[in-house]
């Protein structure tokens, strides 16, 4: 299964992107829980690109082969490498905690691999998740 989706980089497009991906659950052949994790990963990365990237278009490709789902997210915004985001220290007390970095922390937790490259002014994030 291979599907390519494209949205304008505005936050109101995020909901429809998530709904479309949810509708692919049978083709991805994953559990409800896994679908929830996939949506979370997508939301974190796509929302980041929309809110901080300043690009115009975001492309998401889902490729399921055997027991692995590969997700590629391309955006034409400012360079941002999520693999370089600093680790969140989840043991810090409340007064020292800030919300920054939590999204990428969740993405790393719910995926098996995460990679980044910049090509022709486009951010390309690829991740894989065993299903």
């Amino acid at each position, binding site marked *: 299964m291979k599907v390519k989706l494209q949205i304008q980089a505005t936050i109101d497009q995020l909901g429809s992107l998530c709904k479309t991906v949810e509708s692919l659950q049978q083709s991805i052949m994953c559990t409800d*829980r896994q679908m929830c994790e996939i949506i979370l990963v997508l939301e*974190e990365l796509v929302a980041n690109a929309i809110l901080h990237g300043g690009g115009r278009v975001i492309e998401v490709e889902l490729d399921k082969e055997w027991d692995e789902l590969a997700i590629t997210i391309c955006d034409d915004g400012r360079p941002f490498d999520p693999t370089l985001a600093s680790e969140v220290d989840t043991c810090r*007390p*409340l007064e020292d*905690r800030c*919300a920054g970095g939590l999204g990428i922390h969740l993405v790393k937790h719910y995926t098996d691999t995460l990679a980044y490259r910049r090509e022709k002014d486009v951010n390309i994030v690829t991740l894989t998740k065993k299903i």
Partner: protein
Amino acid sequence: MEYTVSQEKNINIVRPIGRLDSTTSPDFEQCLAEYLKSPGRHLLLDFDELDYISSAGLRVVLNAAKVFREVEWKFAACCMQDHVREVFEISGFDSFISIYDTVAGFVDRVDE
């Protein structure tokens, strides 16, 4: 963002419904603002009808927890679905936010 608010004894109980994501969390933050301005009651977030939370929702919860750290009233969450609870745990939020299984669990606690 849909939510309901109720009061039990000296507790404000806020129940967000559906999803706390990048789209809905700003709404929810506005809803909570009223209870964070100068808290005069405990605040319980009842997540019974919350299906999904992302880092955008966690940020709102974190800010609420920080406000309540400075006051005599308690702040807690309850009735989390498994995957919502997991997101809290992965983020380490369970170390500074008390999570109860039921509303009654929190009510009993503040009665003590």
